[in-house]
């Protein structure tokens, strides 16, 4: 097939974008064990922040990225302290419903403030592309993949060597032992949640020049993100990255080689999720089972 190289490139780029979407989710699920339905909304708000930064203040999205991420971290920290911490020990159902409700609130605030119109931040590099013989690489997506690589590597270094990173791994492994070791668990929970929100906001900034920005963009990404998490295994960052690329390859294959595959590709995530849950609920490398 003549478009095989292009298909592979597309899948790799899509995998990078999915990695971005899922990495923050993986952190918050893996360490705080909070089922976070607000994550998609954090992505959405990050995208709007980038859009307004470019439209009103003429700040390039990539320059705005650190600021937006920092804002996301602060807001995430506060949201966790104020709203999520009280249900941390409540049944899982309460967390699901609480964060679902919170997502609904944010989504509709965005809808009321900024209408449902599709927007896009259009920095010059959004439409650039690198063309080779048989392959064309869109610039915007390439940036997304680079950002994904940087974030994943930074996250790994932090988890491996950082003081709080090590503490958060300990927390994920055994909460009671972490408390006994003198780790400030309530703070660390909120901090990790803030970190996840920062990653989400940064993802939003990058998505602002790749996808259309709407109040509902986050929810669609979230559903896909959960599918990837389940495929990769709950609580494993390596698994999430692997899941992101697996899904990207599956979707691209369907899009290229199945008749009217572009539409069907949207359903691939759900099929993959169901198959994973039936055959191997713990995912590719997860430690947590379906119980």
């Amino acid at each position, binding site marked *: 097939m003549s478009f095989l190289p292009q298909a592979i490139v597309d899948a790799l780029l899509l995998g990078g974008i999915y990695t971005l979407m899922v990495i923050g989710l993986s952190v918050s699920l893996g360490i705080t064990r909070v089922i976070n339905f607000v994550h998609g909304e954090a992505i959405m708000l990050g995208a709007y922040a980038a859009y307004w930064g470019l439209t009103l203040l003429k700040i390039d999205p990539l320059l705005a990225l650190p600021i937006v991420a920092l804002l996301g971290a602060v807001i995430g920290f506060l949201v966790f302290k104020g*709203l999520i911490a009280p249900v941390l020990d409540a049944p899982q*159902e309460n967390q*699901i419903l609480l964060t679902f409700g*919170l997502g609904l609130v944010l989504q509709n605030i965005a809808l009321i403030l900024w209408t449902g119109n599709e927007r896009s931040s259009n920095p010059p590099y959004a439409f650039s592309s690198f063309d080779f013989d048989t392959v064309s690489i869109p610039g915007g997506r390439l940036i997304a993949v680079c950002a994904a690589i940087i974030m994943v590597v930074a996250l790994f270094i932090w988890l491996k060597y950082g003081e709080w990173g090590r503490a958060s791994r300990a927390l994920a492994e055994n909460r009671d032992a972490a408390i006994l070791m003198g780790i400030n668990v309530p703070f660390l929970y909120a901090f990790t949640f803030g970190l996840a929100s920062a990653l989400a906001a940064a993802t939003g900034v990058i998505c602002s020049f790749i996808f259309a920005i709407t109040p509902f963009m986050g929810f669609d990404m979230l559903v896909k993100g959960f*599918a990837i998490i*389940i495929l990769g295994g709950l609580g494993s960052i390596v698994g999430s990255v692997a899941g992101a690329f697996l899904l990207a390859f599956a979707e691209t294959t369907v899009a290229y080689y199945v008749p009217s595959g572009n539409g069907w590709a949207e*359903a691939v995530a*759900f099929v993959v*999720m169901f198959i994973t*849950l039936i055959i191997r609920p713990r995912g590719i490398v997860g430690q947590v089972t379906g119980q």
Partner: protein
Amino acid sequence: MATQLIRGGSILLALAFVGLTLISYPSINDLAFRVAMLIIVATSWNIMANAGLVSLGHSAFWGVGAYVGLLTANTGMPLGVSITFGFLAGGLLGILLAIATARLRGFFFAICTLGLSEGLRVVALMLPNITGGAVGLFLAQEARPPLKLIFLLGSIGAILAVAIAIVLSRLPFHYACRAMRNQERAAQMLGVDPRIYRARVMALAGALAGAAGSLNAMYGGYIDPSIAFTLRVTIESQIAPILGGLYTIAGPVLGSGVIVLLAEWTRLAFGANEGLSQLIFGGILVFAILFMPLGIVGVWTKARARRRRDSSMVRGGDPPDAKPRRAGA
């Protein structure tokens, strides 16, 4: 005494709810029909929640019921048959989902239901030969049932759903479900096979939501993938029981009334922007989970228990202010 009053009142209310469909006042009929539909799906959601199965995909049952109902009606079948088919389709989907999710609980289960409804939306979009795809599906003009009949069936359906919930709550089935919610493994030890109970619960819940979806589609006369599998149903069917009172019978009913009236009020007061009512629903969800996890029913029973305690104190000899109370007691 109070219980009998409540019982009598509810029967009167149910009769009034059916009687309401006999008067012809379109906006009231429409409102009552929406309440009735929400009562059915909220009760269905609550039946599943009672067994520890949090659904984020009730629109899957609803949407499948809607498609099956409309397609059946367009072949010339009478209303009763298309609703029955919607009922059966929803039930079948429930059983299939129960089989597929046999081992899953909590988050995994919830995300599966969400994935199912999103996935079905894509399928409906991609099979235009059957579903009409993005263009949608119209109810044939000659298949259109009289509105009065739809309203009547809606009210009766809502009452039937509540009646089913009442009957269920008296059966051992109910306690088995509750045991599953609290500790599935322990329930298993006691001889409750979770897989069978799960299949039954989800068949019933799916069938109720499917029937409601098909009736609603007959009322609207048109569906497309995003209308049939709308997230709205998923959201409202979970907010109504939580606001009213989780795991209770009156909860979904109360919650449904409040939710529909609230949606109507925001529509009248602030125009057709759906964002605001959804915003309020989200706020209610957050507030209810944080501050009144037992809902309106919970607040009511707590108040009643307090009143009873106070009055028994008065009757019990000591006048309440015989001893100076300690501050803060």
